[in-house]
């Protein structure tokens, strides 16, 4: 008699979100730089922000931080990021 197994693996499906189109230019765009709150993240993002302003003429830069790197970003942080053109999330150690 054939053996039948019960699938022990995850079968939960989450609807995939389509990636937004790539930005053609950064000039004049609003960017959010999100620090995940590991030590050194701000050092990296400060430099990145400088480069984005100097070389790519970005419009506005929003700086946000996760309360802790150990957990997913809370809804309240995601809400603050709605409407920006792009988000850069960065970590450092």
């Amino acid at each position, binding site marked *: 008699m*054939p*053996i*039948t*197994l*019960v*699938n*022990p*693996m*995850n*079968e*939960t499906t*989450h*609807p995939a*979100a389509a990636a937004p189109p790539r930005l053609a230019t950064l000039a004049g765009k609003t960017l959010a730089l999100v620090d995940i709150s590991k*030590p050194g993240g701000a050092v990296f993002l400060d430099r990145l922000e400088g480069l984005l302003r100097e070389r790519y003429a970005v419009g506005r830069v929003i700086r946000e931080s996760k*309360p*802790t790197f*150990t*957990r*997913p970003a*809370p*809804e*309240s942080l995601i*809400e603050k990021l*709605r*409407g920006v053109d792009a988000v850069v999330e960065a970590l450092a150690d």
Partner: protein
Amino acid sequence: MLEQGQQSPSIPGGISGSPAVVVFLETDCPTCQLSIPYLNRLAGDEGDGARVIGVSQDSEEATREFVARTAATFQVTLDPDLAISRAWDPVAVPSLFLVDAAGRVIETLIGFDKDGLNAIAARLGLPQVADAYDGAPARKPGCASRHREPAGSAVLSAPVVVHRATAPQAARITLEDGEDAHEYCRRVFGDALPVVPPTVERVERMLRATSLAPESIIARIPPCYGEATVEKIAANAVMAGCAPEMMRVLIPLVRAVCDERFNIHGVQATTHFAAPLVVVNGPVRGELGFACGQNVFSNVARANSTLGRALQLILLNLGGARPDGIDMSALGNPGKFSCCIAENQERSPWEPLHVELGFRPDQSAVTLFAAEPPRGVSEHTAPGARGVLKAITRALATVWSYRACLHYEALVVVGPEHARTIARDGFSKLDARRFLFDHTGIPVRAYDGDGGEGTQLAHLYEQVAIDGEPCYRKFRSLDSIRIVVAGGAAGKFSAVLGSWGAGPRGSQMVTYPV
């Protein structure tokens, strides 16, 4: 937002004549989804509870789908133009208004709050609706109410229902004739150790040991949030080699591991060593054969080995933190095969861990601690308590990194011989913990300006004198150190298990009744 004492505006269906609970909901709000079973309980199984009126801020179709998937049993009214929402003005969803028979607001609750829900149930003369140990957080903030969102931001893509009550039956996999079931499991399920093939018959045997419905979702396992139905838990328990009776421990353990305070999301994804250590207390140790004596950390008993292994398989197979993928641990931890001990209450001179944490001695409990592998402490010559405890402080000083203080915790597993020596000198368990707290410090001279880990935060550390030496105190508080007694009767050894990042921003120890 309407406040206590204000008259409530009208609502379809009316609220006059009897007290009612009006709750504003969004179909894509995870906190609203989380709240549904509790609101169902407020409404009562057979309409014998409170009158609960849900107000959905989303479309009829989204609301119908939401009600079906979350198994909401109370009336849900639509608010398509958000007129009701504007009149009641909840700041967030879920927002709950308890309204008296005359339509006056007598209580409000914003977000999910177990104490608040139980208080409302009590005001209505109903039994408690929120169990502290069901795996859900004590509190969870919700989302902004739709009518307060900026115009145009409320466009819904397909709402993601993350808190449905049940999931479909697990898929059945019929093997080809001649296919070796063990080889199939190794090839397809991909575990590093052989498993017991989860045949339909074995899983059914496991399911007969619980009264829970197979399709009930016990928890969603981070970091990929796979739904742990009772059936999926049973299939993994079979693979781990558990006896069916182990389901009574495994179900609360799965709830506990998904308790947000434990933060298994971070524990599973970190580059650090941490792995969940299970500590079993109470009568269930004897009933199911948990070992608490010699070789307690190793392969001494089926119960310990299979419970720890079942938990790990569930984390891997349903949580998705595979050791070659999302589980990014740099060096790993042998505890990721299985890590489960029981407290040797019979050889302990002190109250057991679960009693210390507020449970009764006749209750059984499982405690989870995100632990590094054990550091052994040998102390065979110290004549008394102070000498044994001082030896333990030297291992405690190395938790996380020698000079890193304040942000870490430790579980000290005291061997029975050490425990006897310590207690003989009159130390209670609290005395022993206090001694360890007071005497574990890092000499200030070790902070010699090289900028290494732990030195940058030295300005935050508390400086104390330990045996005349200026030191930084290693731990934040007495509660950063817990003690359990375990191990064999012979051998003057103890073990120190360091934590992952501790506290609300890391992982907190959780204890659930069995």
